[in-house]
């Protein structure tokens, strides 16, 4: 069989729509993940033990449950437990967002804790309050260290949106399945889709590496 990628591009409108959905869900779920992740990281950094435990449990739960299970549970099981109606879009966004929050929280927490204790000592001795220390001394240093793992997690997040296709959300992979089944050309379709993901994500990781080099000075 001859490899003919033009068959795929003849359906470029479906692919473009799939790509849009993929990017859209990446943005939504990353935003939710970062906001919740920041909150959970702050819980874990408080001196108050019960709050630290709540943060810890959140992180461990969402980091250890397989994403596919989480998505299926959110869509099929949670509505029955809670006696609510939930759309597949909402289920996808919540599942992916909560999943991301566990990983983001760990990155943010570890970033703050990686800053040498001496920085806190020095800021305390100079009379800076907790907020001043965090805002002016600890977080600016921690954020630089967090950028590469945050970018890495965001790349994972974009790739993870492919699992939304099991909820029949028409993301890039879902569209690929559709095109493949109508054209009978899985060889071309999945090859092009794979390359497309690499082409989208490669600039992101290259940017992160460049940032890392610049900060290493």
């Amino acid at each position, binding site marked *: 069989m001859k490899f003919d990628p033009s068959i795929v591009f003849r359906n470029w409108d479906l692919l473009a729509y799939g790509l849009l959905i993929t990017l859209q869900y990446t943005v939504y779920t990353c935003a939710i993940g970062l906001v919740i992740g920041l909150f959970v990281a702050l819980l874990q950094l408080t001196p108050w033990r019960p709050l630290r435990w709540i943060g810890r449990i959140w992180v461990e739960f969402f980091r250890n449950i397989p994403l596919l299970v989480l998505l299926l549970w959110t869509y099929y099981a949670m509505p029955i437990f809670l006696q609510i109606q939930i759309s597949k879009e909402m289920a996808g966004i919540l599942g992916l967002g909560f999943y991301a929050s566990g990983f983001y929280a760990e990155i943010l927490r570890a970033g703050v804790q990686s800053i040498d204790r001496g920085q806190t000592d*020095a*800021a*305390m*001795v*100079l*009379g*800076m309050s907790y907020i001043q220390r965090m805002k002016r001394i600890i977080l600016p240093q921690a954020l630089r260290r967090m950028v590469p793992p945050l970018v890495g997690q965001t790349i994972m997040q974009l790739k993870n949106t492919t699992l939304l296709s099991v909820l029949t959300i028409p993301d890039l992979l879902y569209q690929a399945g559709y095109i493949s089944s109508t054209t009978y050309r899985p060889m071309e379709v999945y090859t092009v889709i794979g390359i497309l993901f690499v082409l989208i994500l490669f600039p992101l990781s290259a940017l992160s590496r460049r940032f890392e080099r610049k900060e290493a000075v």
Partner: protein
Amino acid sequence: MMTATSEDVVLSVRGIEKSFGSQHVLRGVDLDVHRGEVVCLIGASGSGKTSLLRCMNLLLEPDQGEAVIEGAPLFRHTKAGRLKLSSAQVSAVRIKTGMVFQNFNLFPHRTALENIIEAPLVVKKEPRAAAEARARELLARMGLPDAGHKYPSQLSGGQQQRVAIARALAMQPTIMLFDEPTSALDPELVGEVLSAIRQLAAEGMTMVIVTHEIGFAYELADRVVFMDQGVVAASGPPRELLLSGTNPRLAAFVSRFTEQARLLSPLVAAAAAPSTTPLAKGM
């Protein structure tokens, strides 16, 4: 070069107790530091001298005892009760102390000048122009008039430590606490930091210095405090204390340094090696 010591007590700690788990590192330490006095804390590693220094400004919270700075209580936890202070209240007393750390702890994302003006701007809300002017003056006093725009990573260890001293001085503390200020430095950089500290002593700054530089303690201190197993084992003017040999553990501690000095004496005699003697006083 003894400085005149008035009777006015700047910092006082009483009955300081501290344990880390089963390690009882401070076992009831009393110490008064008078205005203009230079106190050197010496002792083997693990004797509690750094812990004591950190208890003096409550970077480390004692299990028991009392700490007062210029009449203002910073910590009290005695049988009579416990003093409860908010972190803002603790901070207000703590900033009467300036502290210099073994590892400098400069803020790496800030230039030398920004390191120095940070607390005056943010904590004391000083106008930027005034804070910068004083920072430049302090840098010049530390022998670093051109280092203001440099980042800590662009400075040598000795230069970083002098910036750290300037940063502490910028808050105009009444007492300076030094935690092994030269222990992390390459040998050839020790001299410049010691001479900066010597200059402060000459200006009458009250100081507590944890140090392994026993010769420096001998030269500069008004009083040497020898810590051993969490207590003040001996204390007194350096000449009497270091040469008396009445406390056997202190004598053993000092003998390690005199032994080294004896081994090096042929070198000292052969050439008045300028690199091993600290810079002349006053720079």
